[in-house]
Every structure is written in C-alpha cells, then in structure tokens.
C-alpha cells in the first residue's frame, strides 16, 4: 500500500505530559468520566470507551537497582493482520487505505467479539450506546492530510507519523542510537503493526504489553476453518441428497398407502 502510514512512539522521549491523552479526547469529542485516586499518576487507571489512548506509568527498578519511570502510550496498534477485523460481523472494524484499523461506529452492533479477539486488549464497550470504541488514528484527520491529534499535540517529538518504510527505518536507527536493551516493537508480529514503539527496555518489562502477540489460534480455527467448512458441509449434504435421490431413490412403503396412487382396490378403506 502506497499510502501506508506508521505512527512511531519513541518511549524514551516521552515525558508523560499526557497532552496526547487530552488532545485525543478533545478531537474525538469524548467526555471525561469521574475517576479515582489509586496511587498512581496513571489516570484514568485503564483504557475506557471514552479514553482511547493512555500513558501508562510504571515504576521500574533495573537489575543494578537503578530506579526509573517507564512511560508507555497505550492504544490501538493498528495491526495488519487484525484479529478484530477478522471477527467483526458487520464490517464496522475495517482496514483503511492508510493500513490502519478504522471503526465505523454506525455499523457496530455491540457483539463485543473484538474485545475477546484483540491480542492487545484495546476495544472497550459502552453499555449505554451498546457499541465498542477504540482509536482510529484520527482517520478523519489523516484524510485531510493532517497528523493524528496525539501526534500534533506531542511537545517532545516522542510521537511522529509518516510513510511506513521511512518510519521503520527511523525506529531502527533510533534503537541503534540508544543501544543497550533498546528495541523496536511492532513490525515483527500480526503482519506488522501501524504503531511502532521504540522501547528503552525489553518488551517483557512493560506492563500490559504482550511479548509475542498474535491472532489467537481459536480465532483462526473459527474464521478460517470452520466458517468455510460450514458451507462446504451443507453443500456436500445437499449434493449428496440429490445424488441419493436420483441414484438410489427414495425409501417407499412396499404397498402404496391411501394417499399414494397405486392399487385402487386398496384405496378408500
């Protein structure tokens, strides 16, 4: 795809100002909900139907005993091989021309299949509207040649967006520059995500970040095997029944019953 975009999240440049969190809500007109203090700056505590991106605050002590903050902007990874798109019955979740995963809310029927399918645990359900919500990488802004509101708001350059090749190169160059355990996260699984991380530490260190995410096997069995098999089996039975009828013939009583034509003398008893 020529227009394929990648948003790069360089966690090493993030200061956790949460400007992206606010900008996301503002652009997408999502309300703030009452939250609670739970002993962390991470607020709200988790992604919500109205909070599509969230800075996760993590206190980390390295092997050498050094303390540091890990800030990770969580949100939809926009997978190429997206489990949510695979399971969505209505096409509400779909791939856009930018390679991102768009959400056509008016088509969402609130089945919540994507919630169970997503390997990153991203979609959130709103009981009141009976629909799911998630980041669509500001599809309406991308179409207008604008960067997503989170990228636009980022003051440190931790968030950038651009063409796929360029951004992948940039991510690897940055990881190399950082050295140590720094690594690129996202391009190696689910067909490559359209959100890449440059992580300062190994992926396993980060909370709520799967090390090797994939489309769940059960969903492959369901959508790629059983779904076509349902039609094949039914078609086979129909064809078999037809062949049975014309080759073997139906099973008939040995003597015609009163409803069937045949020996007249037996009829009308």
């Amino acid at each position, binding site marked *: 795809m020529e227009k394929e975009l990648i948003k790069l999240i360089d966690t090493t440049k993030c200061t956790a100002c949460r400007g992206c969190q606010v900008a996301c809500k503002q652009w997408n007109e999502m309300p703030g909900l009452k939250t609670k203090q739970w002993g962390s700056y991470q607020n709200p505590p988790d992604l919500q139907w109205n909070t599509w991106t969230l800075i996760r605050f993590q206190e980390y002590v390295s092997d050498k005993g050094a303390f540091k903050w890990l800030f990770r902007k969580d949100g939809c990874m926009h997978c190429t091989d997206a489990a949510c798109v695979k*399971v969505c*019955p*209505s*096409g509400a979740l779909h791939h856009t021309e930018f390679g991102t995963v768009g959400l056509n809310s008016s*088509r969402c*029927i*609130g*089945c*919540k*299949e994507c*919630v*169970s*399918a997503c390997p990153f*645990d991203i979609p959130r*359900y709103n009981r009141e509207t*009976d629909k799911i919500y998630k980041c669509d990488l500001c599809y309406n802004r991308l179409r207008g040649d604008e960067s997503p509101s989170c990228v636009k708001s980022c003051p440190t350059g931790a968030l950038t967006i651009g063409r796929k090749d360029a951004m992948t190169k940039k991510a690897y160059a940055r990881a190399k520059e950082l050295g140590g355990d720094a690594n690129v996260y996202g391009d190696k699984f689910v067909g490559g995500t359209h959100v890449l991380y440059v992580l300062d530490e190994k992926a396993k260190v980060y909370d709520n970040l799967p090390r090797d995410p994939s489309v*769940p096997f*059960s*969903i492959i*069995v*369901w959508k790629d095997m*059983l*779904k076509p*098999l*349902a039609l094949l*089996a*039914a078609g*086979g*039975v*129909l064809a078999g*029944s037809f062949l*049975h*009828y014309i080759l*073997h013939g*139906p*099973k*008939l*009583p*040995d*003597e*015609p*019953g*009163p*409803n*069937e034509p045949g020996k007249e003398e037996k009829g009308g*008893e």
Partner: protein
Amino acid sequence: MRKGLIQATDGFERIVHWSLALSCIALCITGLGMMYQSLNFIGDMMGGLKSLKYVHNFTGVFFGVALYFTIRMWWKEAGIFSMPEDLEWIRCAGGYLWHVDKVPETGKYNPGQKMFFLAVAGFGAIMFLTGLMMWFPLSFPAMIVRLMYVLHALGFVVIFAFFFVHLYLGTIGSPGSLDAMLTGWVSRAWLKKQHPKWLKEMEEHGTLVVYGEEKTAAKGHGH
C-alpha cells in the same frame, strides 16, 4: 383424516418439534447474517444488524426451552441404542445407501434418527450454553470466550449440515414421513416399512390408535 391411518405422534410432540425446528431455522438464518458479511443484508428486514443480533439472542432462549422439552420427551425413545440390532442397522446403513436384502427391523426411531437426535441434543446444548456466554462475553475471561466462539461455530457446522439431511429424509427422501410431524397420522404401509418393530409393539400392547376405530388407548409421554 381418513379411516385406517395410524397415530404416530401426539400434539405435544409436534408442538415441541416445530418449536425447536422453527427456532433452529431462525437461528441459522440470523446466525448466517452475522457470520458472513456478505449476508449482512438479512438484518435489513429486521431493522438492522443490531436488531438481528437481538432476534438471534432471544430466539436462542426460546430454542433452549424447546430443546429441554425435546430431550425430556424423546430421550428414552431416541437417546438410547438397543443392541445388537441397532449396530447391525448401522453396519448396513439402514439400507439407505446400498442394496440390503434384509434390514434389521426398527422401532419408533431407527439408529440414524437416534444419531440425529443425539447430535441435535448434544450440539444444541452446546449452542445454547456457548451462545449464552457469547451474549455476555465481558463476564468471562477472554481465553474462555474465544473457545466458546469455536464451539459455537463447530456446532453450526454440524447442525447446519444435519439440517439438510433431516430435510431430505423428512420429505422427498422418504415419502410419507412428513405426515408424522404434520398431522401425526401415517399410513400403515409406511409404518410397516419404516418402523415395523414399533408397529408390532403397539399391536401387542394394544396401544395402536387407528383413525375411525373406537379404541382410544391412553398414549403419550406422561406430560
């Protein structure tokens, strides 16, 4: 009705059968509308796919109730194989697939029907339980819910295929059979061919109900 016809099913059996059958068909159609995006249009006649979802879910509840009565009603007659004659019947496929000189005589339900009943009972129960969990997926761990989707799809593969077998053998594949589920009255010739052992049993026990004859022996399932 005409004289000489024999009662094969009572009204309760037929109501339960059609409650299960019609809800099953409705579930298949609405389920297809959600399983294949190209069939989303099925939702249009219900006011959208979201309404279709609710039609599917609530029909599922009805199906569950019908299935309960189906299993309770037919378990003794169709859920248990009688050996060894049923095994012999299966070995020659009841004479349905190739020529067999002498097919073992079958009672009210032949082993093929029993297998169909067990498939519907087993997979029907699976469909009901998995469907219920899929209705409230956020109440269970995602790992479990994913498995429910697989089982639900597997159940559909089996039930959808079996539906067409049932449709064929209940209509043109075995003329006269449909009457048993429509009016409940079948011809003696059909009964003699399809369920000779049952006919003999009813004659021996004096439970045979013949239209136009006075004897109306108490029959039924004790419901």
